[in-house]
């Protein structure tokens, strides 16, 4: 077996960048990435390798009558064709609930659901063989309208999410429902504003499509090299489906081309391993862009009814919200998204009374799950539209209104959790509001700097400027009693010249966010040496790091590596020649919500919070509905920036994704079928769409976190959709209650 181990290690073994905690350091993997040598999952190669291909359902909802693989098996170059009958172990898997079939057996529940697998010598042979698999479907009525789903026949008769401590909701297709009752939910104010807001289905649209290489180990086990966000939970789902012990399945992190939540769920892991074990050959699977769009979960589309009651002076009295989320065909991480949407529905504001109902439903739409800011993005769009509406109704400056109601330490959240630790909401609002908005540029100017750009649709006629503002917040780490701990293992020994040498093992997934640098910065800081290497990420050799999600990994990996380094160094200094310690770091414990009241059953439901405020300037051609975002300024509560250059990079990139949802990004479906699964039809921001982003870091250290860190990835995405639309409203005077905003919504 000629495994490309040299390629697999790249970017993790080059330790040229020597910064410590708090310094801007060049990425460890920067050089291999700029030269093209860095090995992504799609670049892997093994001698004798076959190419795998997935056959997917063309229906959103159908019964499978028969699958005939005989013609496909006879095609040239084909080594295996597998269906549900060939799944060696458990037939279903899932991140939180095992409700998704490895391969559909008698029924498909969404467009693109995996039905069969092919392995062939050339990817084109695999594709052509896949076309010869005859699947007879009997189409069923799809459940596609979340407002009606709770009255339609259940898609999962066994109700997979029941019995997990959630609120008992007997309606069909309810994946999770939460009701938060805070204070007096009927409290009246002196003034009331309300609105109904909608968000379309956004896609993570990472650039590197799902890919991986599965290699059988000749003893019945398998090694899987894959682009993923959580190695150990992949393993915990894969092994039962293969009918193997956990130790027989080793998952290794390969180069990851972006993630943003879309790689939390399994993609090719079980499929590739099934083909590899069946053929006794390494099998590589690489999704096309179209397959990527149907092959991972999306951001939940939402419909949100919200009413704000306030005093005439602008104090919030009562916030009432009803939130409907479309979870799609399988559960994925919908339960956590539902919780976030409910818990952050009010925004970072102090309010004595609230009634929040949040329901996530199963449907035959594409499955939805984690995407950057999950749940909080949807709520922020609604609560910030409401705050602007309230400010206008009261004649109060929108920034003043937000400052007046800003949540601070000591205040109580609608879940009953008291805000403790760092929560500088007022400070981020002030800092963002103080950023100087650029003066309007004079006309005439190059059309590239006008709405419509190179289309040359205006020379300034009909162009109106708008300045918007928004604030958002979200939790760091997992919540509701989940102990998402992180392990790190540190080996120390005496190297040449008697110098201390360290090697760190941590299964934290580097997905582009820069956690590799964080780990090495922490290790150098704690060990006081530059001679530190990070071993490749793998389930072999170290316990779980938890997921690269929920803005948690800087906090958790820093905590684990610091703990292991300190204990290892103490042993080394006590005279041990070779030290090898593994330590597990836990964040402060959280508690679940009471299923009936939505009140926390202990001190806290969330570990800690991050907030951000953002100011946006847009130019809108109100005759054509075309937009140019001119400038974005933001202040973000980051705790402590461990690598400031990377923190700014997260803020700029996260802002772009929120701008995308505001202006252009939506997975479109017709009767559950995706109609725009390509970069031609699903648009993401280009260089011409992104304005300069001026970011202020508010560093107020989180007392319970290592070095005072928080997370940084999600807040810019949470707040930017709301902030961009706020600016569009200011330019046009339109309500703009749905994102992405369409040209017709803006044009006169």
């Amino acid at each position: 077996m000629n495994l490309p181990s040299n390629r697999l290690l790249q970017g993790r073994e080059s330790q040229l960048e020597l910064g410590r905690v708090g310094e801007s350091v060049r990425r460890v993997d920067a050089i291999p990435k700029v030269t093209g040598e860095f090995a992504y999952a799609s670049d892997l190669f093994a001698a004798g390798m076959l190419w795998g291909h997935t056959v997917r359902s063309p229906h959103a909802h159908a019964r499978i009558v028969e699958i005939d693989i005989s013609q496909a098996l006879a095609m040239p170059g084909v080594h295996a064709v597998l269906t549900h009958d060939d799944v060696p172990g458990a037939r279903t898997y899932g991140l939180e609930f095992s409700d998704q079939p490895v391969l559909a057996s008698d029924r498909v529940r969404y467009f693109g659901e995996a039905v069969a697998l092919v392995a062939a010598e050339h990817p084109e042979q695999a594709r052509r063989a896949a076309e010869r698999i005859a699947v007879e479907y009997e189409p069923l009525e799809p459940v596609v309208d979340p407002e009606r789903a709770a009255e339609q026949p259940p898609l999962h008769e066994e109700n997979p999410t029941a019995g997990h401590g959630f609120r008992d909701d007997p309606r069909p297709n309810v994946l999770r429902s939460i009701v938060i009752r805070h204070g007096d939910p009927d409290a009246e104010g002196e003034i009331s504003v309300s609105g109904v807001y909608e968000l379309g289905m956004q896609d993570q649209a990472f650039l590197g499509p799902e890919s991986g290489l599965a290699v059988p180990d000749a003893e019945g086990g398998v090694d899987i090299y894959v682009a993923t966000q959580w190695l150990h939970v992949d393993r915990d789902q894969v092994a039962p489906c293969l009918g193997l012990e956990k130790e027989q399945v080793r998952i290794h992190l390969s180069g990851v081309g972006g993630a943003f939540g879309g790689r939390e769920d399994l993609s090719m892991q079980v499929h590739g391993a099934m083909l590899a074990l069946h053929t006794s050959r390494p099998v590589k699977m690489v999704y096309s862009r179209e397959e990527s769009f149907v092959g991972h979960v999306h951001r939940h589309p939402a419909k949100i009814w919200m009413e704000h009651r306030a005093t005439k002076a602008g104090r919030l009295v009562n916030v009432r919200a009803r939130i409907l989320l479309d979870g799609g065909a399988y559960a994925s991480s919908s339960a956590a998204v539902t919780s976030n949407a409910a818990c952050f529905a009010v925004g970072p504001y102090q309010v004595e009374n609230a009634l929040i109902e949040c329901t996530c439903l199963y449907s035959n739409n594409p499955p939805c799950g984690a995407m950057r800011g999950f749940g909080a993005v949807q709520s922020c769009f609604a609560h910030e539209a409401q705050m602007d509406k309230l400010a206008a109704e009261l004649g109060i400056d929108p920034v003043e209104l937000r400052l007046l109601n800003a949540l601070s330490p000591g205040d109580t959240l609608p879940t009953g959790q008291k805000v403790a630790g760092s929560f500088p909401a007022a400070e981020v609002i002030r800092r963002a509001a103080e950023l100087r908005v650029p003066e309007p540029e004079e006309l005439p100017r190059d059309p590239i700097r006008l709405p419509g750009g190179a289309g040359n649709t205006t020379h300034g006629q009909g162009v109106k400027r708008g300045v918007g503002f928004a604030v958002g917040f979200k939790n760091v780490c997992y919540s509701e009693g989940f102990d998402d701990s992180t392990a790190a293992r540190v080996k120390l020994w005496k190297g040449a010249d008697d110098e201390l040498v360290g090697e760190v093992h941590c299964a934290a997934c580097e997905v582009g966010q820069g956690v590799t640098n964080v780990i090495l910065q922490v290790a150098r800081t704690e060990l006081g040496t530059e001679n530190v290497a990070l071993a490749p990420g793998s389930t072999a050799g170290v316990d779980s790091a938890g997921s690269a999600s929920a803005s948690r990994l800087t906090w958790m990996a820093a905590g684990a590596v610091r703990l292991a380094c300190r204990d290892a160094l103490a042993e080394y200094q006590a005279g041990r020649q070779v030290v090898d310690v593994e330590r597990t770091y836990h964040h402060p414990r959280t508690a679940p919500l009471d299923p009936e009241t939505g009140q926390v059953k202990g001190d806290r439901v969330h570990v800690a919070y991050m907030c951000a405020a953002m100011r946006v300037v847009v130019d809108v051609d109100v005759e054509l509905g075309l937009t140019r975002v001119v400038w974005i300024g933001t202040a973000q509560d980051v705790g402590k920036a461990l690598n400031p250059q990377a923190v700014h990079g997260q803020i700029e990139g996260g802002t772009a994704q929120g701008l995308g949802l505001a202006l252009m990004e939506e997975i479109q479906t017709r009767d559950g079928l995706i109609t725009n699964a390509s970069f031609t039809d699903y648009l993401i921001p280009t260089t011409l769409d992104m304005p300069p982003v001026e970011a202020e870091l508010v560093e107020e250290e989180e007392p319970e976190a290592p070095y005072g860190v928080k997370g940084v990835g999600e807040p810019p995405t949470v707040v930017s959709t709301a902030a961009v639309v706020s600016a569009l409203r200011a330019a046009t005077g339109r309500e703009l209650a749905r994102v992405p905003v369409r040209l017709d919504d803006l044009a006169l």
Partner: protein
Amino acid sequence: MKITLRVNGDVHETDVWEGESLLFALRERLGLPGSKNACEQGECGSCSVLLDGELVCSCLVLAAQAEGHDVVTVEGLASDGQLHPVQQAFAETGAVQCGFCTPGLIVATADLLAHNPDPNDDEIREALSGNLCRCTGYAKIFDAVRLAAGRPL
């Protein structure tokens, strides 16, 4: 079919299927996976290479069409162990996160600066508008282009 490709100055004889793109041949036949496959339809620029000095999406060129032409990929930009100034600038400014778009952007930027050594911001934006990046929001990519433009190529 057998074809001969000249890539980064080296001549390769290889066997391809008629329908294979230049991108596939580079990645899977010639062992040059630096050019990335992210959309297969010329929308994202991740597979950008120079074909006789012209910037093209290698996913839209058949391997057989490239016979007799000079191909330069991201692997061919560094010389004598020295990074190309554009590569150096991308690494320094933090223009790389996941890095999947990086090879294409580096080839596109090298092409821009070869034709326009001192581009203004509008020219940078326009020249790179065919290269999608999902991680960075482009700010640090612009920094990299400006930094590279100030250095001798």
